[in-house]
């Protein structure tokens, strides 16, 4: 859909998991959900986050694929692994800075969100965005988004020294124009709480 963009706002996620069910309904991958759904801190809180593939402009998953199975379409959507090519090596699973691709053991194949390109190409919203009651996953025009939210949509991420520009926007505090994550800050070794 021309002019429409995908916006992810984990702070609005209420954990209803409608997106998971809606994604499972899709004909192209019936029964397997492509939504990445996380409980942020399960022992201590009820916060959840649902997010989709961010569809990087220069996708790391595709760059590391030894079988040339992951392709970026004309619309900038990073597609699921091509079935005849994917060898199930899980390079993409390890390489993706967002942790999006999933290796489905039954099929020995990587499957990931393809932004419902079969729907968006004919003027429909992606499945998850149509059902999300809090619009944590939203597929709207930038103008509509600016009118609805105070948050700043960003599509530039820094993972250590790697800069990733994405097609999908993440809602960030108003003054931010990029998000920076250093993976080293989140490794187990840093956690004092787990020290004996």
């Amino acid at each position, binding site marked *: 859909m021309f002019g429409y963009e995908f916006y992810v706002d984990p702070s609005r996620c209420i954990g209803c998991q409608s997106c998971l069910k809606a994604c499972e309904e899709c004909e192209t991958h019936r029964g397997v959900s492509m939504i990445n759904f996380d409980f942020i801190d399960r022992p201590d809180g009820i916060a959840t986050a649902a997010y989709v593939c961010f569809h990087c402009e220069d*996708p790391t998953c*595709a*760059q590391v*694929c030894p079988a*040339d199975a992951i*392709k*970026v*379409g*004309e619309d900038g959507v990073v597609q699921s692994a091509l079935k005849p090519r994917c060898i199930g090596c899980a390079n993409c699973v390890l390489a993706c800075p967002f942790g999006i691709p999933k290796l489905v053991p039954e099929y020995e194949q990587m499957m990931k969100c393809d932004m419902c390109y079969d729907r968006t190409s004919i003027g429909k919203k992606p499945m998850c965005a149509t059902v999300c009651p809090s619009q944590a996953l939203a597929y709207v025009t930038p103008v509509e988004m600016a009118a609805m939210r105070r948050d700043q949509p960003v599509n530039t991420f820094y993972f250590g020294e790697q800069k990733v520009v994405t097609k999908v926007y993440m809602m960030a505090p108003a003054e931010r124009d990029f998000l920076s994550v250093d993976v080293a800050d989140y490794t187990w070794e840093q956690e004092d709480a787990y020290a004996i």
Partner: protein
Amino acid sequence: MQSEPTRPPLWREEFSVFKNDERYVSRRQLIKFLTLTSMAMFVGNIWILVRGKLQGKAPEPPVIPVAKLGEIPVGGVKLFQYPRAGEQCILVRTGEDAYVAYSQKCTHLSCSVFYSQDSRDLVCPCHEGHFSIRDGSVLQGPPTRPLPAVTLERRNDQLFAIGMTNTGAEQ
């Protein structure tokens, strides 16, 4: 100092992750490639054949002294280089008055063969190839061709190498 933007490697261009930039080899290109390569191979073979016919006979093998009679004991060996420097050969005294010499290069993968006193044959240690001491033929192991034999000649009390047989060149 700003470094110049480097061109991505060819494989990245040919197998681009972007569908629009993909460059596949078309059927016509493949057939063209196959035809031209097989033609080049055909011409190359003809050239090798013609060159072989034009060159004529191989030069006479050199005659070099190898050892004195009685220099090595019965069952003993002596290494020498024949017909050129660097081509190791092995001389074996198999009996009181019997000498044989073979190229030391195993016809399988060119390891050096040695004379085994126990089995009384030439053994290649790499893959357990055994060659007969009588005529260099293969007794066991992966080699399929016999060892090239050095023709020996006795002049007074000196052994001379005067040529080679079984080299695979004579036909």
